[in-house]
């Protein structure tokens, strides 16, 4: 029998971390700080809207780009929150989560051999999606000393004549880093000068603390070269609804919609109706969740400081990214031993790129009680490691 699989697919590196994840998911008594989704339920009024539209039988396909009312609300929301202006007719596409939008953006823009700049540590899908689209991923290793922000120098150094796209994943999973306006302004000049496009994954935009989120698309000259990606998962605690969107220049969005039309048809109708309600009526819910996350973030930062564990203060998402280099073991060794000895699960930084070595991703999408319990165990573990040095 001949080989059933595509060479490209086989060439994709399987996530080395999968094995570790499987062990954790099998352990019933593990205390996990490994989850990348909100611990809040979707606000009831949004779920209620979902139920109501099912009862009313609104269960048919929508237009490929999504319900018009939802696209209009997306535009209203982006204007209200981030001062961005998009035309719901042609510049907005509703997708199955932000992940689909990332894939579509890359597929619509990449020609064979085009280089795509991917700052890491970052979400795991950018690299494989780039390869599947025929592009060449070029990794930019972000540094702890820059608080894992992308600098102009790092960007310039990575650019070659083949560079076409920069993926900009901020607020960042796994580091919690954000790019403030001044940071974005510093790189925007380079992007324009080198004629690059940006895929800006802003899925965590509602979760910044003490600093307002700024979209790179709002800077002068950037709107026409940015695909803005956002969604409902993190802002409204709607991960399982699988609802996201992309906004950008009509020329690119048209082609993304074409792929979406053939591959997906449309995002789930039920989720789209719920999404309209989410955008219109959730400001208070979002503010409350943000305040709660912020309290936990401060708690963890304080706990790490007391432990004497090196950790830069993250201002976004719901992760902290402490450094464990002092213990002289790899992130995966550390995480595995922490799991075996204390039954606490955290994600090794290397799950998000090689430069995550020496770091751990710790999620605070957990109650204060859970965090305190986990920190007691982590503290005991670290105490033993230091004592045995």
């Amino acid at each position, binding site marked *: 029998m001949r080989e059933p699989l595509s060479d490209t697919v086989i060439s994709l590196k399987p996530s080395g971390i999968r094995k570790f994840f499987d062990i954790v998911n099998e352990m019933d008594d593990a205390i996990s700080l490994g989850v990348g989704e909100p611990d809040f339920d979707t606000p009831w009024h949004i779920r209620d809207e979902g139920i109501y539209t099912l009862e009313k039988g609104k269960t048919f396909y929508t237009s490929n780009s999504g319900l018009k009312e939802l696209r209009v609300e997306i535009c209203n929301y982006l204007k209200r929150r981030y001062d961005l202006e998009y035309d719901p007719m042609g510049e907005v596409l509703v997708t199955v989560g932000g992940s689909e939008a990332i894939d579509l953006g890359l597929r619509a823009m990449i020609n064979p051999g085009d280089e795509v700049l991917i700052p890491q540590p970052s979400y795991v899908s950018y690299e494989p999606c780039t390869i599947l689209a025929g592009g060449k991923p070029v990794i930019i290793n972000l540094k702890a000393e820059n608080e894992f922000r992308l600098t102009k120098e790092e960007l310039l150094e990575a650019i070659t004549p083949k560079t076409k796209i920069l993926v900009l994943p901020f607020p960042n999973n796994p580091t919690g880093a954000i790019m403030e306006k001044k940071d974005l302004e510093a790189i925007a000049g380079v992007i324009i000068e080198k004629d690059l496009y940006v895929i800006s994954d802003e899925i965590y935009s509602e979760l910044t603390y003490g600093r307002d989120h700024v979209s790179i698309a709002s800077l002068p000259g950037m709107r026409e070269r940015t695909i803005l990606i956002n969604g409902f998962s993190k802002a409204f605690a709607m991960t399982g609804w699988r609802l996201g969107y992309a906004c950008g220049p009509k020329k690119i969005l048209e082609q993304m919609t074409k792929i979406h039309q053939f591959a997906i048809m449309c995002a789930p109708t039920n989720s789209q109706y719920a999404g309209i309600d989410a955008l219109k009526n959730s400001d208070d819910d979002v503010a409350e969740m943000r305040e709660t996350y912020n309290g936990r973030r401060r*708690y963890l930062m304080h706990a790490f400081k007391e432990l004497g564990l090196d950790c830069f203060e993250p201002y976004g998402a719901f992760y902290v990214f402490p450094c464990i280099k002092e213990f002289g073991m790899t992130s995966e060794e550390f995480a595995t031993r922490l799991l075996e000895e204390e039954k606490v699960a955290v994600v090794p930084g290397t799950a998000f790129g090689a430069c995550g070595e020496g770091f751990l991703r710790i999620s605070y999408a957990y109650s204060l009680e859970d965090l305190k319990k986990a920190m007691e165990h982590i503290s005991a573990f670290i105490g033993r490691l230091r004592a045995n040095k």
Partner: protein
Amino acid sequence: MREKILTFIEKNSRIDLKDLAIMLGVDEVAVANELEAMEAERIICGYHTLIDWDKTTQEKVSALIEVKVTPQRGQGFDSIAERIYNYAEVESVYLISGGYDLLVTIDGKSLREVSQFVSDKLSTLDQVLSTATHFILKRYKDHGTIFGEKKEDKRMKML
């Protein structure tokens, strides 16, 4: 800062003072001082425990009573409300807009005890014109908290 402290402790009055200060990003002494000041100003009126008595062996009956009264010159509803809320059996008293005047909630050990309170004490007050008593059969949610089973974390442990 007051509103933020209140938001946190409204849901969890047992939160450790140190944790509360850390989560608010302020000094522990400052939080303690604010709490003390708010207690003195009766902004914070107490720290209660939310109990689902149905899960205990203690018999308990609660009722909502709609009360129509004659307000008094110069005092409005305040003096009659005071007459009512001073009874130990009375859990809460609200002045209500609409079809009646006062909403009174009563806790008692048995139906009889509650009924007796209404017929002997409440209805016989001079200013009380009429009462309508509604016994509570089941408490689903109280103080923003849903009674029933403990919530489980349904998420994948790692994703």
